[in-house]
């Protein structure tokens, strides 16, 4: 049972090599490190030596819930999975934040986190049930698809057991393989599934009937309602005339309006162009072909939610037709992304994208990185460029794929998609084995053999040395985006910055472009102190980037979802100014723990977490020269207004000198004075004594 507000008080430690299971107190890390990503970073610092490779038994798989996980805190079902990532060529620390119900169930089972180290001599899975944990034989589960594994585990432990695990891709050490949580969420980007596979750990199933204590339950309940009202209205409020549009459903209704809503006036009945989606952020219907099945009654669709979330962004579909799988997918990861992305491919939209998801899930491949990197698009590009021939891919191409995404080549059939995914997951054949090594390794080796592949590699691999980031960007301005991408562990703060919240305001509240621009000006002024953040200058950009990074870190520590991040800045439903409440993180923290923290204090508490992460990267060899991009990036049109010299010179200087960071200008190592001021003297000492890093004063 709960011992302190928000926390159960125990972190489970599992050594797979010896099979020994122990517990350590959560209070070693909180409240200073808030939770989630902050605690995971500190545990990693203490556990994983810098020379350890991602697939070494010494690497740790750290699963850490946030302080608000397992409470009613809105959209707070996320948790952090951190480890040394096998994805970049320079393997380094990274983390990911999947959501679902697993983190909540773990708290109800009596644990705040699980740290897995070592390597089991044979395949096992971990079963955590109400304060007890045991390793069980998974010989029969090894090699099975994710769905089959979950079926077996839930047959044994009941449908209320929440399961995270890996598919064949993780077992076969495909470097980008994610851990799939609850079958509909994944640890994007970092390759944690491959780390799990290297440990012979197939799954972690949890079930709990315990409780989580909350300091101010009524305040938390009110906060949830307050947050919901930033998004939408209840039926009663709509009936009373308070609200537009008249909906009584979750926010996802706005997003997809698939099964529930008749054709929305003024929007295309059928997707025409991917740009339509990106412009309107989802107001065209991604599942029109599904609608035939829905209308015929063979598929039932609805929304699915993570624990305690007012958004409910997962799309779930129950099928009685064997040609369409039952399943569900999270808003931006599993299901709807390809539906949107393929909105331009008329023949692939809907049902094939659901199969694509099902196979990605079952094989344990993340949908955004099953192929050579970012999307199937890259695969298509490589075919278009003639780098990949039918002989190489082992599949006849009946017609040449088009370079635009509007025409679908006949070859892109279900069979083709499935074959490619399976070959990657099982590492079959030279090409697919190379693809399983991850985008960076694959494209680099491909470009060495065939220079025609270089443009594709360059488009993806912009960062110098640490490719654990997305290649696109959603930050407030090119300048801010550049700073974030250059200095981050992985690019994550997109939703906290401007994009999503603002876009959904636009699409849901039915505003014009001019109105949205006005709203954004007000938002920028309130949040960043200046009306225009997208101007082509470096003024204020460092402080804005740091604000974005700290806000994002705050999300990962509480831990709340990007949705909450988005609506903390811009609210769909808060006229007249449509601004959100970015203090929601501090409010949640105070309600859950009873410890009063202002928004400013919370954001400041992120600085030591940033410096722990920085110290980890420094320990693993990162220095100033790696906080930059490859030369071709600076040559792109988006850099015309500035130069490599300016960015790598005074801009990085300003970033390093900011009190929030306090890094040495020559090396990028956190200064001793910074670390000590942030209560991290231990880290400074250990950097010098244990790891031979000279820490500048």
């Amino acid at each position, binding site marked *: 049972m709960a011992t302190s507000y928000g926390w159960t008080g125990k972190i489970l430690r599992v050594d797979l090599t010896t099979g020994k299971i122990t517990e350590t107190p959560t209070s070693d890390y909180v409240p200073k490190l808030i939770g989630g990503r902050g605690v995971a970073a500190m545990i990693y610092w203490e556990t994983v030596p810098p020379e350890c490779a991602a697939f070494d038994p010494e690497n740790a798989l750290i699963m850490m819930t946030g302080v608000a996980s397992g409470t009613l805190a809105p959209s707070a079902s996320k948790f952090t999975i951190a480890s040394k990532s096998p994805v970049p060529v320079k393997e380094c620390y990274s983390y990911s934040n999947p959501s679902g119900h697993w983190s909540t169930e773990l708290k109800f089972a009596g644990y705040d986190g699980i740290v897995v180290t070592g390597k089991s001599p044979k395949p096992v899975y971990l079963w955590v049930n109400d304060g007890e944990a045991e390793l069980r034989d998974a010989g029969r589960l090894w090699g099975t698809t994710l769905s089959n594994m979950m079926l077996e585990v839930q047959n044994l432990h009941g449908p209320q057991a929440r399961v995270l695990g890996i598919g064949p891709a993780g077992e076969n050490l495909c470097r980008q393989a994610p851990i799939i949580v609850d079958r509909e969420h994944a640890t994007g980007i970092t390759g944690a599934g491959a780390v799990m596979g290297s440990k012979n750990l197939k799954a972690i199933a949890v079930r709990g*009937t315990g409780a989580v*204590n909350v300091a101010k*339950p009524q305040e938390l309940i009110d906060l949830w*309602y307050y947050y*919901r009202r930033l998004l939408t209205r209840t039926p009663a409020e709509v009936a009373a005339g308070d609200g537009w549009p008249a909906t009584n*459903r*979750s926010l996802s209704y706005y997003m997809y309006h698939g099964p529930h809503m008749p054709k929305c006036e003024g929007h295309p009945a059928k997707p025409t162009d991917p740009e339509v989606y990106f412009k309107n952020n989802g107001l065209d219907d991604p599942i029109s072909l599904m609608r035939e099945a829905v209308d015929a009654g063979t598929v039932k669709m*609805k929304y699915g*939610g993570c624990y305690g979330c007012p958004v409910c962004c997962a799309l779930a579909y129950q099928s009685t037709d064997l040609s369409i799988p039952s*399943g569900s997918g999270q808003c931006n990861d599993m299901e709807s992304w390809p539906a949107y992305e393929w909105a331009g491919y008329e023949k692939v939209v809907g049902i094939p994208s659901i199969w694509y998801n099902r196979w990605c899930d079952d094989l344990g491949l993340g949908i955004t990185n099953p192929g050579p990197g970012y999307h199937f698009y890259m695969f298509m590009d490589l075919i278009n460029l003639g780098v990949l021939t039918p002989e190489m891919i082992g599949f006849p191409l009946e017609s040449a794929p088009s370079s635009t995404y509007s025409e679908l080549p006949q070859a892109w059939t279900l069979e083709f998609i499935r074959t490619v995914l399976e070959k990657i997951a099982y590492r079959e054949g030279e090409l697919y084995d190379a693809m399983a090594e991850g985008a960076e390794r694959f494209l680099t080796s491909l470009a060495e053999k065939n220079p025609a592949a270089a443009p594709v590699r360059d488009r993806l691999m912009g960062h110098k040395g640490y490719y654990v980031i997305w290649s696109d960007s959603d930050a407030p301005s090119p300048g801010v985006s550049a700073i974030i991408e250059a200095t981050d562990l992985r690019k994550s703060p997109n939703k906290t910055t401007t994009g999503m919240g603002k876009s959904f305001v636009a699409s849901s509240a039915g505003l014009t472009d001019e109105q949205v621009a006005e709203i954004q000006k007000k938002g920028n002024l309130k949040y960043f102190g200046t009306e225009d953040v997208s101007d082509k200058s470096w003024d204020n950009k460092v402080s804005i980037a740091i604000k974005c990074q700290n806000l994002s870190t705050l999300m990962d520590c509480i831990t709340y979802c990007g949705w909450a991040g988005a609506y903390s800045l811009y609210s769909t439903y808060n006229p007249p100014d449509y601004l959100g409440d970015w203090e929601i993180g501090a409010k949640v923290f105070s309600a859950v723990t009873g410890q009063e923290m202002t928004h400013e204090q919370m954001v400041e508490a992120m600085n030591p977490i940033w410096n722990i992460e920085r110290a980890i990267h420094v320990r693993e060899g990162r220095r100033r020269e790696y906080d930059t991009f490859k030369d071709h990036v600076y040559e792109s049109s988006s850099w015309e207004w500035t130069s490599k010299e300016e960015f790598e010179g005074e801009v990085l200087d300003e970033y390093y000198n900011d009190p929030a960071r306090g890094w040495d200008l020559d090396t990028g190592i956190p200064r001793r004075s910074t670390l000590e001021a942030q209560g991290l003297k231990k880290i400074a000492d250990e950097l010098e004594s244990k790891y031979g890093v000279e820490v500048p004063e």
Partner: protein
Amino acid sequence: MPNEEEAAKKVSRKQFVKGAVVGGAGVAATGVLASCAPAATPIATEAPPVATPTIKEIIKEVPVELQQAIGYVERDVETCAGCRTCEAVCTLSHEGVNSPALARTWIVDYILEGRRIEGWTCKQCQGPECLYACPVEGALHIDEATGARVIDAEKCIGCKLCIEACIQYPNSPIRYDAQNEIAVKCDLCGGDPLCVKYCPESSLTFVEREV
């Protein structure tokens, strides 16, 4: 659901059993008990040595009107998103902790079946088996304002009979609070159920009854 007539009959059984167990030598019960138990046996102080069919026959004779609840909470599993906000808001508002095991409305989320949901809510039955089964005077009683069948935590002895008597058992929305050794039950939050108010998909609705 049992009809009104049947419901009415049962309440007197409740009164009868209540008298037999708690009162021990309840006036109404004594004669009956004496008639169906051996004459030499003293009145039971533990489990009542009651021949149930006999009692059922007897209580048929004593119809009593039960106050009906103003309504009940119903879940549409077709739209339920499985977010479990209802569970959380229920125990946070009642117990001040988040403990789904105590939530008076709860679900099982079959993720592998496209998030098929099974869910249970208290129907505030017109013929409440839980109320009939409760052996303690006033422990499971009818709230005067809402007509909800509610549990008095002070009086509940944690015998779990109500939980097992529920027509939805074994998926009873009456839950057992092991820490306090009492049963907990939907009280309609005094007439404005929070689970309904907070459901993001409006899957939970408050169905009003004509009283």
